[in-house]
């Protein structure tokens, strides 16, 4: 580690961008993917990872506000939440859980094949992940349109049409605070869905870079980081599914 550094420093940083694998003997700084303010690839890798984890921590704290809102209102209106939860489609919610879990698997496998330098396989796995993300959004679209149709909307817009409500709540009075549940439901799933849409964008960007040949068995950090982001989206949904869809 230290020899590479000192030799590179001694050689006036001469043209390190010109070849792919600079060797110490030639006085190059290092491989092309190594930014000049890092000593070694592993230092650059650790720095990027730490930055990503800090971002993910921030994401968790951001979602924490929504989870706290959920906790307050569920604790205030438990019966209303139970009624409203029964209006959600458990089958679609469960299907979306499986779609997201599967996309997490393909994202993890994409990182693995990138680590092994298998460019083609990485590309295919990233595309499968994107397809799953679209699948998730399509299912979500059907769920949302049903909620709109049935008047299961946030706050003052909450005006359920009794003909479109779930059979399991037939005969039960429409709760006064159902709008609170649907406010939280649309906010949490909406912000989560926004993360899915952003995920499609960034995974597609990494796919483009992969096809361009940016990544090798020595350098695959961006694939790793985009997968971390995608797993976080999955992680949030792992909690959203039981908390929103499966209230007794």
């Amino acid at each position, binding site marked *: *580690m230290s020899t*590479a550094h000192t030799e590179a420093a001694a050689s006036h940083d001469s043209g390190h961008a010109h070849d792919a694998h600079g060797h110490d003997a030639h006085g190059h700084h*290092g491989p092309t993917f190594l930014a000049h303010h890092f*000593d*070694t*690839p*592993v*230092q650059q*890798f*650790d*720095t990027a*990872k*730490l930055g990503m*984890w*800090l971002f*993910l*921590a*921030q994401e*968790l*704290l951001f979602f*924490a*506000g929504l*989870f*706290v809102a959920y*906790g*307050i209102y569920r*604790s*205030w*209106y438990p019966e209303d939440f139970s009624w409203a939860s029964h209006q959600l489609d*458990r089958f679609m919610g*469960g299907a979306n*859980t*499986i779609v997201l*879990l*599967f996309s*997490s*698997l393909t*994202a*993890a*496998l994409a990182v*693995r094949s990138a*680590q*092994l330098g298998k460019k083609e396989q990485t590309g295919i796995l990233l595309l499968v992940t994107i397809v799953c993300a679209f699948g998730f959004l399509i299912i979500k679209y059907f769920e949302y349109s049903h909620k709109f149709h049935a008047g299961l909307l946030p706050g003052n817009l909450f005006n359920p049409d009794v003909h479109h409500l779930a059979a399991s709540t037939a005969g039960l009075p429409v709760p006064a605070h159902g709008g609170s549940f649907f406010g939280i439901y649309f906010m949490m799933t909406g912000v989560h869905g926004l993360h899915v849409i952003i995920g499609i964008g960034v995974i597609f960007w990494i796919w483009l870079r992969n096809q361009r040949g940016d990544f090798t068995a*020595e*350098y695959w*950090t961006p694939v*790793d980081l985009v*997968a*971390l982001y995608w*797993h976080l989206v*999955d*992680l949030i949904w*792992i*909690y959203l*599914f*039981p*908390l929103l869809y*499966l*209230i*007794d």
Partner: protein
Amino acid sequence: MSDNHDHGHSHDDGAVHPHIASIKLYVGIFLALIFFTVVTVALSLIHLGPLNLAIAILIATVKAALVVTFFMHLKDDNRFNALVFIGSLLFGGVFLAYTLNDTDRRSEVDHVQGAYVYEATGERAPGGRPEVERPVQPASGEAHGAAPAGH
């Protein structure tokens, strides 16, 4: 920072030496996640009272732990990254606990303002616990007016 990256055998060439897990492990974790999803749906259909929520959160946490440990590689990662992650969870917990401690107990501590009913409608205000609730005053202003404040 880089010293946490070796896995038994030490490399000091400055290159990244990831721990590459087998496809079998990843697929196994995925199947475990599907299994727990089915379990949580099945258990939600059994009425267990407040236990339902506890079980749902427990199972979700087991699933989250699997994702974080294996898919997100925290098992083989720099420990500091795990600290960042767990630290944010802890502070999220503090946020939730302190907020609920307030919103669930307002009626217990808020005797002075008598915040049991909405002034406008007389409807029961959230946060009141039935066992400590005082009789609802029909006209919300009256009780305060009758108090010996006199100014």
